[in-house]
């Protein structure tokens, strides 16, 4: 239980003397914001099943999730929280039946975003913007399956959704779309961060929770 050596001090979280390890309070914050993030992400995800929207999925979800993510980052002062969010989002989606790729991308981009944020000491706006874009890329775990194991994926889709669905989806997602989708998702993360900061300034700072 290394995360709590100063129980009487961390009711306010940020006064703790132990700056590097995560306290129980931090872990609870991770849980809260991951829950909101996941709910909003899922709301965006429902759109994505109509094939027309699949290319947009990577853009829409991070924009929606930008608001909780930016509020979350105001609470993040230590390394590990954003990584944990990535890991848990991956685990949750694996539980929902999205395969192991999502977990891998969740871990990968969660840690990468965390490293970027740490480079800015969780203060610098440039690093926050960039980190938010990188974090959004975990969503590519869903879409990667469509490109990395293309034939198998579409075969399994064809047997259950019908050939017409598959044909439409295939025509919307040619191979060159893969890097484009990466860029689009990154852009989604950036736009989400900007939107989130706008909302943060307009509402949350006034309400005293950011």
């Amino acid at each position, binding site marked *: 239980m290394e995360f709590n050596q100063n129980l009487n001090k961390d009711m306010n979280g940020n006064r703790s003397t132990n700056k590097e390890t995560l*306290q*129980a309070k931090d872990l609870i914050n991770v849980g*809260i914001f991951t829950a909101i993030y996941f709910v909003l992400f899922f709301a965006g995800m429902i759109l994505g*099943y109509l094939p027309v929207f699949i290319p947009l999925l990577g853009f829409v979800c991070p924009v*929606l999730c930008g608001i909780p993510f930016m509020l979350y980052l105001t609470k993040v002062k230590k390394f590990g929280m954003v990584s944990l969010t990535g890991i848990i989002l991956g685990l949750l989606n694996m539980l929902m039946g999205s395969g192991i790729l999502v977990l891998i991308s969740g871990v990968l981009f969660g840690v990468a975003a965390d490293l970027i944020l740490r480079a800015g000491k969780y203060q610098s706006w440039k690093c926050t913007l960039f980190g938010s874009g990188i974090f959004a890329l975990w969503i590519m775990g869903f879409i990667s399956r469509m490109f990395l194991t293309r034939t198998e994926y579409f075969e399994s889709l064809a047997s*259950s959704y019908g050939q017409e669905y598959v044909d439409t989806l295939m025509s919307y997602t040619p191979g060159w779309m893969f890097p484009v989708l990466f860029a689009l998702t990154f852009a989604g993360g950036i736009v989400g961060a900007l939107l989130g900061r706008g909302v943060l300034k307009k509402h949350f700072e006034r*309400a005293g929770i950011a």
Partner: protein
Amino acid sequence: MDTALSLPFEIKSAVKIDPRTKIFLTVTVSTIMVAGGTGGWMRFVRPSLAVFPVLALLAAGRWKAVLRFGITYAVLFTLELLALVHLTGAAGFLLGAVIGIYTHMLPGFLMGCYLIETTTVSEFVAAMERMHISQKIVIPVSVVFRFFPTVREEYAAIGDAMKMRGISSLRNPVKMLEYRIVPLMISVAKIGEELSAAALTRGLGAPQKRTNICAIGFGAVDVLLSAAAVFCWIGFCIG
């Protein structure tokens, strides 16, 4: 309401399944239903996986959830049989996609409901401790599960408040997003503050090792269900 009266750390159920088995079963149902095909062995695997969550929920006494999902499933199935063959072009395509998605997602979703509704946080923590999973994963994940119902309740309450003031949908999607999400996040952040204060008071994260009153362990039911799930995976892999 009766859960509030009975002991909150355990939920009585006709069939007691270990949380670890539940998690394994949820992954099995959702993954195979979403990613699996329909031919070969899957002709037997798929229906049984679709029926299993319903049985599990019945065993846990969740009649309402079973009824709700049963009706949804029946409506979709009749739509598929009656309407889909007559529709062509965009409408048929759209309906086909929607039906396909729902019939694929519903069993996994139902299984997730079962997992969350029948597992208390204490049981979950006890099971994860048995597996020696780090507290850094266990605490956030249990908070996430604790928060899904809260988010839903708060969202409904915001909807009610908006209705009372006559602010209804579809005037401006971006504005609606703001009206919905901002209060939701404020209330959830506040609840979170209270939750962490309560949890810390109760000794979460105290240096001592926590003890747990929940009886966790694998029984005959767990072995049986896990074996069945392994068979489903074999069926899934060989197609």
